[in-house]
């Protein structure tokens, strides 16, 4: 085979711009976890089904296991590590804590980021809209009730942005 060559890409991850050299066959999830040591996005099904690898790309939730890193070139990425900014926890994370909406925790980062995208677009979602938004994120502890309650509570607790 011919020489395997890397691509130079620029990603803005949690507000920090990175220039990265990567092979085209690596996924965004691999680059985030291995090159940037951001382990919040999880690898689970590798098949696009479960949502544990969810990150926000330009504000929208995507499966980082199905997206090549080179395809995210120029994108703004938010992972769970960057959600709270300088605060200790983000209000959505606080709501998950308050409602006990975390069991094993494997789905949690994906759930929280999906909730973030939902609440940014729709600050007062109905229960059905919450269910639709998180329909692509599986919780195998089946703790959905508390997750839905936590996300729904953010709208009432919130004072000026989340």
């Amino acid at each position, binding site marked *: 085979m011919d020489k395997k060559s890397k691509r130079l890409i620029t990603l803005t991850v949690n507000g920090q711009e990175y220039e990265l050299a990567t092979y085209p066959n690596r996924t965004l999830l691999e680059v985030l976890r291995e090159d940037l040591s951001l382990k919040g996005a999880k690898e689970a099904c590798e098949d696009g089904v479960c949502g544990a690898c969810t990150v926000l790309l330009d504000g929208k939730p995507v*499966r980082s296991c199905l997206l090549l890193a080179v395809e995210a070139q120029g994108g703004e990425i938010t992972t769970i590590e960057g959600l709270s900014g300088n605060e200790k926890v983000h209000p959505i994370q606080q709501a998950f804590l308050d409602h006990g909406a975390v069991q094993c925790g494997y789905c949690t980062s994906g759930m929280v980021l999906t909730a973030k995208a939902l609440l940014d677009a729709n600050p007062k979602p109905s229960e059905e809209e919450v269910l639709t938004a998180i329909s692509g994120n599986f919780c195998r502890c089946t703790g959905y009730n508390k997750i839905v309650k936590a996300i729904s509570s953010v709208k009432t607790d919130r004072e000026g942005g989340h």
Partner: protein
Amino acid sequence: MRLPYFELFEPATVPELLTILKREQVRVLAGGTDIMPLMRFGLLQPAKLVSLRNLPELKGVERRGKALHIGATTTLAEIAGSPIIEKDAPLLHEAALAVAAPPIRNVATIGGNVFQNSRCLFYNQSAAWRRERQPCLKAGGEVCLAVPGSRKCFSVYQGDIAPALIAAGAKVRIEAKKKGGSREVPVEDLFTGRGVQPLSLRSGEMATHFVIPILQDTGSGYAKFRLRSAIDYPLAGAAAFVTARKGTIASARLVLSAAGPAPVIVPLDGVAAGKRSGEIDLDAIARAIPKNLPLVNNHILPASYRREMLSVFAKRAMKTALDRV
């Protein structure tokens, strides 16, 4: 599992893309939500991929006269969220919302959905699973694992978008760098009816746009059966599209998904056209579904049950279409 190395082309113009498609043995990468799992399972092992991400002319929805032109890399989220599509192509809007979950729709494209591969429980499996068995016909082998002894592949086309496009009378624009390579054909012409190679686009060709006629006095409905409503491909799907003139049904189309290796157009001659919408016998619509659909026990539910559900969901889709006209 990590993806094997491949070379990636990233053309910046459509002519450049067509040159690459002509010269190289490449697979097209759009949103990647269908092809990435296939690559992970080792079912596809392309040495070269061509990315469509730098081609804005393949993206977007535009009304031109009495038709909607939709670029092949328009995402399903963009389609589901487009007010023009909701108004002028409501069947496509409904079908787009039925595909997978919102995060998938944020990257999956209309072209990628139409050009998705057919599926089978004995094919869509990991390399470790397949290593214990002979390769099946679709995987380049000589046997069918679903129907031992068969020389025919029974994999099933499970797209939601293609049946909706076909029912609405849509065409697909195809470009190629050769004489007479550029053309517009009905979406149904993309399908070969063969499970091993379900799509007919030849090497060097690229589907760039879908063109949907905007008609007056129409009604439509898409009904989808699946176990996990958040994520699954259809186990039965039905797209119904009717037009009316002065209170009577002028034309009716019903197209099924998960009914064989290609979307199935149900012949409705004498069943619907010319009648008032309230007079149409939905059982007659269900009886018009061909009896010899090539369904076998190669999906999570048995063939007999899926056959039954095709009737049920066909009736639901048609009832919705008739109620809306």
